[in-house]
C-alpha cells in the first residue's frame, strides 16, 4: 500500500501514525503539523522525522505561522497546494488524515 498521511497537529491525540506500516508512506505536514518540520525542542528535531517516509510541508501553512520555508529540516520538501494534488494522484494510492 502506498499511503499519504496528512498530519495537521503538532501534539497528536492519537497514536495511529506510529502503527501504520505501509510499503510506501508519504507524510504531508499541514496546518500545525508543519511545526514538525521546523521546531527543535531542547535542540532535538521532531521524532516524527525519524520515520521511514518521504516528508513534505505545505509552504503556505509554514509561512502563515511565521516559519521560514528555507529553514525546514533537510528531510522535508516544501510544497505548494498543487503539489499536494499531484502527490495524491500520482505518488500514493490511499490517504489518511489523522
Amino acid at each position, binding site marked *: 500500500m502506498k499511503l499519504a498521511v496528512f498530519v495537521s497537529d503538532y501534539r497528536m491525540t*492519537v497514536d*495511529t501514525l506510529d*502503527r501504520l506500516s505501509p510499503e510506501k508512506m508519504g507524510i504531508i505536514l499541514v496546518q500545525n503539523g508543519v511545526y514538525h518540520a521546523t521546531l527543535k525542542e531542547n535542540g532535538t528535531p521532531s521524532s516524527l522525522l525519524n520515520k521511514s517516509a518521504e516528508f513534505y510541508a505545505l509552504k503556505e501553512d509554514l509561512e502563515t505561522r511565521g516559519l521560514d520555508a528555507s529553514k525546514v529540516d533537510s528531510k522535508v520538501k516544501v510544497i505548494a497546494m498543487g503539489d499536494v494534488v499531484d502527490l495524491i494522484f500520482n505518488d500514493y494510492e490511499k490517504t*489518511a488524515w*489523522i
Partner: protein
Amino acid sequence: MATTKLGFIVQRPPYKSENPKLALTHAIATQSVEVYLNEGDTVTADIAFIGDGVLNCKKDQKAMDYYGLTSTEQHIKMALLVDINIWVCKEDVEKFGLSEDDLVLDAEEFGADMTVNVVPYGEISKKMEEMNHLLFF
C-alpha cells in the same frame, strides 16, 4: 459489476467527539448506497476500532438514559444488523484492562448474525491493505 471497499478506522473515544458516531452512521448508510449506482455495483464499509477508539465498544452504555442520545453501543448493534464487518484491536482492549466480556460483541436481540471480531492489530493492518479507500475518524 464492481465493489468499492471502504475501511473506516475509529481512533477516538465516544461522545466527546462526534467522529465515532458519524463513522457508524455513515457505514450503516451503505445499505442504501445502491440507489445512486448502476445495478450490480456497490460500496461496502468495514469498521475497525483502534487506540482509544476501542472504548466505543464498551457495553452497557446509558447515553439514552442520561442525554437522550442513541448510544454508540446501539449504533454498533445496528451496524451488525446490516452485516457490517467490525474489527476491534485486541492489544488496545487489553491495554485498558478490558476483556471481551466488557464489549458489545453481538446484536442477537435484533436478530443479527454478525458478531464483533476482537483481533490483533496485525489483522486490522492487513484489512487496511485490502480496502480501496481509508477513512480515519
